[in-house]
């Protein structure tokens, strides 16, 4: 579903955010993309979404080679990737229903079909009674669930979440992560960028560890993340507080 071959991303200021990364994520898989700040997690997501372009290497996403993808084909790539951001990116002037509906409206679906599907997804994430609420009336967890609903409403084969629990308390984080696991159980490939070791240990899925742009580990949390479960690894995550 997602393949990277010797991918390097270098920004205009000379900083290499990803260096020679090779990785394969299978269809329906759930992976945690982890590492300290500046490890290259967000750049990884931006490359998948074609927000940025790799300087070297090849990226294949949902059957498309991004290095030869034309600019006008980018929207069609993005329709295959639902995305959830740490800051939710909800539109404050639209209610919950309209925030979710936007992902279907761009496909030009009839209003009736949009309505049916949005209500179905809101029910799935437990927000059906908040359809008419404005985003600023909701808690952080609820906002993130709206963002998840928007990301999956068009049934994309891939869901990418960049620090989806970054602004949430531990209980809500587990709740959100469980929702993402449920989505994966329906066959969606899920990539979650996080540095929350507790969550990785708890959910026990494959972890891809990045540091300073390099892919340094790839495996189960017990193998990839040294130290006792539930503790943050001192060496790798020491930059988090900076």
């Amino acid at each position, binding site marked *: 579903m997602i393949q990277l071959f010797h991918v390097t991303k270098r920004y205009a200021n000379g900083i290499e955010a990803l260096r020679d990364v090779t990785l394969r994520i299978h269809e329906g898989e759930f992976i945690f993309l982890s590492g300290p700040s500046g490890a290259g997690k967000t750049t990884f997501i931006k490359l998948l979404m074609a927000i940025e372009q790799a300087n070297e290497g090849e990226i294949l996403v949902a059957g498309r080679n991004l290095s030869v993808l034309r600019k*006008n084909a980018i*929207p069609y790539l*993005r329709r295959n990737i639902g995305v959830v951001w740490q800051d939710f990116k909800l539109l404050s002037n639209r209610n919950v229903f309209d925030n979710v509906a936007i992902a279907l409206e*761009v496909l*030009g*679906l*009839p*209003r009736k079909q949009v309505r049916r599907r949005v209500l179905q997804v809101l029910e799935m994430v437990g927000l059906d009674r908040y359809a008419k609420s404005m985003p600023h009336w909701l808690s952080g967890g609820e906002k993130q669930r709206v963002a998840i609903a928007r990301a999956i409403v*068009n049934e994309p084969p891939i869901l990418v979440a960049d620090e989806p629990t970054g602004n949430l308390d531990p209980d809500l984080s587990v709740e959100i992560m469980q929702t993402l696991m449920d989505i994966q159980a329906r066959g969606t490939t899920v990539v979650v960028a996080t540095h929350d070791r507790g969550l990785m240990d708890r959910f026990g899925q494959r972890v891809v560890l990045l540091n300073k742009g390099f892919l340094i580990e790839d495996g189960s949390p017990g193998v990839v993340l040294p130290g006792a479960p539930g503790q943050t690894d001192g060496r790798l995550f020491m930059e988090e507080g900076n």
Partner: protein
Amino acid sequence: MKSPSLMSQSTLVAREAWKNVRAAPVVTLVAIMTIAVSLVMVGLFGFVMINGQKLMDSMVQDLSVTVYLEQGVNKEEVEEVLSYLKDRPEVAKPTRFLTAAQDRQRNLELLGEELARDLKNDVPGQPCIEFQLRSQDLRTEDFRNIPKRLMEFKGVESVQDLLYIAEDLRVLLALIELTRLTGFILCIMILAAAIFFTFSTIKLAVYARQDEIEVLRLVGATNGFIRAPFYVEGFVAGLIGSILAIAIVATISSQLQTHLSEVQSLNLYLEQMPQGMTVWLLGGGVLLGLLGSALSVGRYLRS
């Protein structure tokens, strides 16, 4: 999932455009006013030009020349004069040849029924050729030589002209030409400023919606989808702006007509808004709105 229909797409675009307007009504209002004010200036200039030209044309109608021919003039001699006139660029086509009988008939008609009955046998008729000079050819003085040259033709008895007013007309023509040129340059400047202001106002609307545009791009909206509501907004602003402008120009021209008609000595009837001008203003307004939208959204999406 069902494929999108044109109807649902159009409804969605219209709804999004309406949301834009509702979110920033002042911006839309400023765009409408910018377009309206620009078109009023252009429209008033057009109004002045149309009536200036009309005034000129009506005055040039007096600039007619009648060539009286001898009673016994033959066909060849007439043809020779007509052929000369045909080659003169200053002469408006068609020239009119009247036989003695036709000239008499015309004189009878001009006299009115009663007088004509009284003078029936005394009304004269003489073969003649009538023509008018073209206003645009008054720039050169060549036309002055025409009566003199005509007198040299065999069969020509006399030439009656009103060329003494030509000098005044030439000054008027020069003034109209100058106004036309100045106005044309001014119109270009006004329209360029209007495009710039519309562009700037719609750019404000685009920036006000940048969060929304970012989300739309992330969920896979095409540039066309993002642009469409702004185009609709530009179209509607242009349409309303031009309708306003047409109403203002029509009111001003009608008021002017009322006031000028009270001045008897002017004997001037102003042309009201011609249909062609209405269409031009309407099209111009819509084009201004669309162009302003296209430039501002296009620039934002490229950045």
